[in-house]
């Protein structure tokens, strides 16, 4: 091999190394970008929680959690709000879960794909985009006034349920789609009816995914203010609800009231942060329960 050829070859390799270096550099740069994005997400949650804990933790004590507010809501606790939000969350889930899962099963398992299904899906997606205050007004007009339910847990649960419905339908459909068709074929091939297939094979396999959607839905419902301010929540009530037709206090609405229309807004700042802390703890707690349950289900496989 002459020197000339050798040189050319080395030249080629060197150029290639330059390309290699550039590619590695770009790759490292992109990864850093992705990593930073992920870190920003985590940090945002940490900052919010830190802020609430720092400002709200010293208001939290047994009295705060177990007593109703007193002295025009400048003292005392938030028990009625905690109970109210729990009632509304459970109620919203009771409304949205059966209807949502049933709709998703219909859309994904029974309905022939076509124009009607596309139309229904479009409707559901648009429902998800409706602002929550519109749900509130709808709840007021339809459940509270037209159906004469009145401002109550029931009316609030129905309204929040309607708000949660698209989330639950969406995630349930996703979970059903993730169940391999081979399961369905195997079941049908053994002489099972379509319903038996869904009940015994498809739903159990989709359950973890459905639960995830439910968690998301309930978390959202628990923190909403606008849909309940016309339908369920009141400014102040000292008593705990005894039936689903009672009006209630709720955590998010209580924060809103203390921060905008309270008797002494500045003096109740710690109460506001305390209430927010309880709300976020409640939502994270709900999530945690569902996550633990879900991982148990997954492990059983």
């Amino acid at each position, binding site marked *: 091999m002459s020197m000339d050829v050798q040189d050319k070859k080395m030249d080629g390799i060197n150029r290639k190394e330059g390309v290699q270096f550039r590619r590695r550099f770009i790759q490292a740069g992109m990864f850093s970008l992705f990593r930073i994005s992920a870190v920003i997400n985590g940090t945002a949650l940490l900052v919010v929680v830190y802020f609430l804990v720092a400002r709200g933790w010293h208001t939290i004590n047994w009295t705060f959690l177990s007593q109703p507010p007193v002295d025009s809501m400048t003292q005392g606790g938030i028990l009625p709000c905690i109970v109210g939000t729990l009632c509304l969350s459970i109620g919203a889930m009771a409304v949205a879960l059966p209807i949502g899962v049933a709709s998703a099963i219909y859309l994904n398992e029974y309905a*022939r*794909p076509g124009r009607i299904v596309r139309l229904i899906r479009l409707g559901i997606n648009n429902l998800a985009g409706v602002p929550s205050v519109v749900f509130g007004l709808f709840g007021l007009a339809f459940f509270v006034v037209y159906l004469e339910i009145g401002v109550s847990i029931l009316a609030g649960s129905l309204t929040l349920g309607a708000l949660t419905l698209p989330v639950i339908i969406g995630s349930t459909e996703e979970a059903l789609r993730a169940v*391999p068709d*081979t*399961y*369905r*074929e*195997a*079941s*049908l*091939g*053994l*002489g*099972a*009816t379509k319903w*038996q297939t869904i009940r*015994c*094979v498809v739903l*159990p*396999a989709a359950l973890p995914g459905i639960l995830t959607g439910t968690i998301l839905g309930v978390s959202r419902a628990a923190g909403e203010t606008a849909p309940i301010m016309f339908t369920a929540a009141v400014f102040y009530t000292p008593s705990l609800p005894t039936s689903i037709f009672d009006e209630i206090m709720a955590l998010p609405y209580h924060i809103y009231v203390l921060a905008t229309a309270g008797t002494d807004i500045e003096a109740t700042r710690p109460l506001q942060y305390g209430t927010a802390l309880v709300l976020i703890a409640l939502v994270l707690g709900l999530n945690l329960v569902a996550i633990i349950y879900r991982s148990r289900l997954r492990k059983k*496989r």
Partner: protein
Amino acid sequence: MENSPKMSAQNLDFYYDDFRALYGITLDFQENQVTALIGPSGCGKSTLLRCLNRMNDLIPYSRADGKVLLDGEDIYAAGVDVVTLRRHVGMVFQKPNPFPKTIFENVAYGLRVNGMKDRGLLRGRVETSLKQAALWEEVKDRLNDSALGLSGGQQQRLCIARALAVAPEVVLMDEPASALDPIATQKIEELIHELKKDYTIIIVTHNMQQAARVSDVTAFFYLGKLIEADLTETLFTRPKLQQTSDYITGRFG
């Protein structure tokens, strides 16, 4: 091929929306024999197989014309209960597809959905089926473990046991060994040999040696048409048509 066949397709056409997948297939499947369906990908052999238990019904906008007879009765006639049909014509799929349940529950599934509740009866049938599928010795001590913990070959035999548990008369197998290693494949083939004493077996395979080893009759398909069907020995040694000869010698496909 003189006595009346267990199943037969008669002038069967099949369409996926506007694509015609089968052209006037007429073919008999004899009782207690293994019939192999061979041909290149997309030739319609799997489509035909899935017509035999009406699994194709699940595909939207698909349509079958013609007749498929099971013991002389047309399974595409109006008023035929597809669920009952599938109890008589079982199916084993290409990829092992056990349910994410225990080994016991997998085999018991078909019995349960058909209304069997008695625990002792279930146990008996599960054991019999697993023995038929030559899996019992390997799993008898861990019936309550997840089926997903079994190896691929064991999973496929579990699926065969699951199909046998509901006591079908015909067993359809769609490339049952294509996802398995040679040793597991051999086990499945031996099993097919055993099973034909009690069942009518129809198997789709891409592997011509496998067709030659396990089947009594072989049918060769090409582009949705049945090209040639004969006793396996005859078809592989003295095919009547050049096209068949080209395919089985590996010149195309």
